[in-house]
């Protein structure tokens, strides 16, 4: 969407009207106050917003949307700003609608095993509140201490335990959503379904483009009584990848099944000393949960598979402290890798598990081609890769090289039957890659869905689904194997 020119008088009017409907201190207008909101977790893409509105209630959100609609001002919703695809990147001509102050847990309903919360509640806060009742909210993105449940819904966030317990879409039973036209949609509830089109599923993962989530009802599960954590080290990446397939093929669904490669292991060891074998080409972290007898049987089975697949070292954590230590290396992997280079670029493709070894080998070849190192830490059980491309933004051309390499990795994910984003969303970042995954007719269908909810195109415009014009201009990219034809043109 083109930037909208707003005259000074109109600016004043809108600002005054917004200030009227918001509490004192909930409308930011000063450059210094606006600056922290210029990007989400993808800091390479920035734009300082015109205004930041921080409503504390649904009725305030409704009022802000009404004013923006009347004046034709674009609105960008934001939760905690931990998104990694630029989905919450603001616009200089728009209002950034921050929902972080709507952070009350409204209800923990033990009879129905659900929690009803405002969108700004942090993911982990739900499990903490439910914990005293022996319950928890299963999806656990690595960012869970910070990210908001509203942002999780908008991105359909995943986490380490999604292999067994599902993604956000599988664990949300109800939403309240405000459309930009001012309607309040109550989707689902405390039951398990509702008649008619599944708007709850459609809203989940829609990146804040179809409506603003103002309330979320999530399913709570009993905390598993026992868990076991196994660490297995391999001399070859391919062997670790084969072990992942073998575990699933035997009918086991571990609670988590994560993989890290040599560079990621070294980074994690240097950072938190989790005790990973430094000589390994790859490690697998496998968590099994359930009742005691069940996890022990599964553990014996996993151990046998790991040995059969050539693991040279297998360590089972003896107690909760050691389990936490083994996980620490994985959970701290991103910041650990962040110490290896001034910058890193986190990718998020998903592939069929059977293609893991092949795609990792392809990434190794790309490292040589682009002259950039990659650390791999990822959700192996789901086939969800997170290659971290190391670069230095201060060196001319390196950011562009990292982006071009990232696009090549994503194109390879699509080529083997996968997708350009498993959990981080398209945002602004992967618009070009979407052109390779979807046909013009498919993208057009998505645009018509957007139009159905937001005919004026005011809610988070320009994100998630590329325009056909953009894809047409980019046509050469895929034919020529990913070398950006017009690298000097503005890309966003």
């Amino acid at each position: 969407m083109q930037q909208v020119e707003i005259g000074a008088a109109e600016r004043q009017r809108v600002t005054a009207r917004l200030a009227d409907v918001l509490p004192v201190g909930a409308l930011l207008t000063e450059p210094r106050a606006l600056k922290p909101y210029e990007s989400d977790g993808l800091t390479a893409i920035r734009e300082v917003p015109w205004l930041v509105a921080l409503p504390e209630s649904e009725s305030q959100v409704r009022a802000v949307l009404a004013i923006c609609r009347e004046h034709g001002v674009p609105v960008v919703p934001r939760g905690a700003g931990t998104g990694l695809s630029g989905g919450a990147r603001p616009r200089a001509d728009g209002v950034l609608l921050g929902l972080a102050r709507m952070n009350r847990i409204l209800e923990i309903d033990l009879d129905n095993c659900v929690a009803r919360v405002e969108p700004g509640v942090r993911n982990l806060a739900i499990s903490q509140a439910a914990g005293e009742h022996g319950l928890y909210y299963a999806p656990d993105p690595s960012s869970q201490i910070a990210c908001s449940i509203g942002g999780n819904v908008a991105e359909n966030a995943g986490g380490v335990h999604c292999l067994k317990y599902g993604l956000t879409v599988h664990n949300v039973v109800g939403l309240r959503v405000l459309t930009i036209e001012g309607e309040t949609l109550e989707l689902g509830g405390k039951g398990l379904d509702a008649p008619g089109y599944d708007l709850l599923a459609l809203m989940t993962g829609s990146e804040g483009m179809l409506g603003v989530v103002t309330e979320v009802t999530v399913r709570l599960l009993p905390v598993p009584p026992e868990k076991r954590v196994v660490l297995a080290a391999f001399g070859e990446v391919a062997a670790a990848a084969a072990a992942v397939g073998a575990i699933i093929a035997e009918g086991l669904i571990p609670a988590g099944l994560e993989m890290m490669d040599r560079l990621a292991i070294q980074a994690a060891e240097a950072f938190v000393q989790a005790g990973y074998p430094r000589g390994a080409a790859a490690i697998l972290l496998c968590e099994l949960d359930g009742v005691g007898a069940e996890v022990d049987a599964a553990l014996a089975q996993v151990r046998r598979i790991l040995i059969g697949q050539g693991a040279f070292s297998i360590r089972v954590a003896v107690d909760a402290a050691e389990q936490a230590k083994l996980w620490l290396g994985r959970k701290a992997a991103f910041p650990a890798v962040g110490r290896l280079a001034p910058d890193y670029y986190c990718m998020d493709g998903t592939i069929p598990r059977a293609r893991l070894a092949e795609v990792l080998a392809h990434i190794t070849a790309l490292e040589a081609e682009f002259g950039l190192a990659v650390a791999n830490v990822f959700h192996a059980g789901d086939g969800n890769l997170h290659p971290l491309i190391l670069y230095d933004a201060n060196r001319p051309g390196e950011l562009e090289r990292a982006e071009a390499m990232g696009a090549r990795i994503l194109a390879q994910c699509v080529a083997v039957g996968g997708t350009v984003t498993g959990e981080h969303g398209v945002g602004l970042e992967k618009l070009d890659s979407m052109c390779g995954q979807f046909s013009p007719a498919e993208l057009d269908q998505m645009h018509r869905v957007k139009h159905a909810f937001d005919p004026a195109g005011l809610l988070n415009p320009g994100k998630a689904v590329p325009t056909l014009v953009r894809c047409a201009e980019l046509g050469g990219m895929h034919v020529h194997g990913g070398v950006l034809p017009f690298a000097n043109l503005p890309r966003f």
Partner: protein
Amino acid sequence: MPPDADIADYLQDAVAGAAARGGALCISGSGSKAFLAAGHATGPQAAGGQLLSTTEHTGIIDYRPEELVLTARAGTSLAHIEATLGAAGQRLPFEPPRFRGGGTLGGAVACGLSGPGRPWFGALRDAVLGVELINGLGERLRFGGQVMKNVAGYDLARLQAGAFGTLGLLLSVSLKVLPRPQSERTLVFELDPATAVARCRAWARQPYPLTGACHADGVLRVRLAGAPAAVDEAAAALGGDGAAAPGYWDALRDHALDWFRSGGCLWRLSVPPAADPAGMDCLINWAGAERWWSAPSGDDATARMLTRVAQAGGHARRFDATYGIQQPTGPAATYVRRLKAAFDPARVLNPHLSPADAY
């Protein structure tokens, strides 16, 4: 089982042709759920709609057990799919009903019904990873894919589940499948409805390997499944008054229990699972969340039940020819109508089940 056949081109021509003529199509699978999809009394045939069957678009396109994913053409029978999965020790997690033994994959997804394990294994829509469909413009489109995690673009694949073919003619569907549990056991408890619901809700807060809980006619049946050790442990903890006849859960799934033969008008109620069942006189499935009610004749009883369900925060639908009609109410209606128009502006696909025109 008919041989594999790809008639996507034929189906696409049929939709494009109907769109060009301003015609309407009534999409069908094996007809096992036609009793839910006859639609308005005027009906598609009455409105000049043509029947278009997908039953000859058959075959499993891709199935690799270690990926836990199966992709099949829409006309493939559920029986064939479940037999293929069974041979590899796997199953459809959502246990789709097979009314009168029939059913195709496309029909199951279009109707969106899930079986007794839904609270624990997820709904049909939860297992949908991707679809290929023909929209009302006659375009062949793919959404989602064959991988477990995929957030590229809007989730237009899951949206097809339960849309009764009003947004697209399904050509093929990719589903997440699961290993079959190593062991299974059913416990029986003689309890009144209120106690049964209370027990189910208490158990839901405990890590028992429950995969079914259904109360009818004074008996609560509970299915346990998983590793043998876990099932044994839970069975010992839960106790019970006996064991159930084999085949109970399939009969429940397919509405083949005697309970469903009472003859009244059948209603499906979807409610918060803890909703008070006293005086409701329902079959209580899904540990409380899904209830079936056979309405006595007379409007009063129905009106009272609808009020109760609404007060409990649930929904009620008659499980008859009107079930498939997409009849939105409230503020969502606008968006539902526009969504229909976004996929099928000329109202070619199942107009007799579609929401009214937008704008």
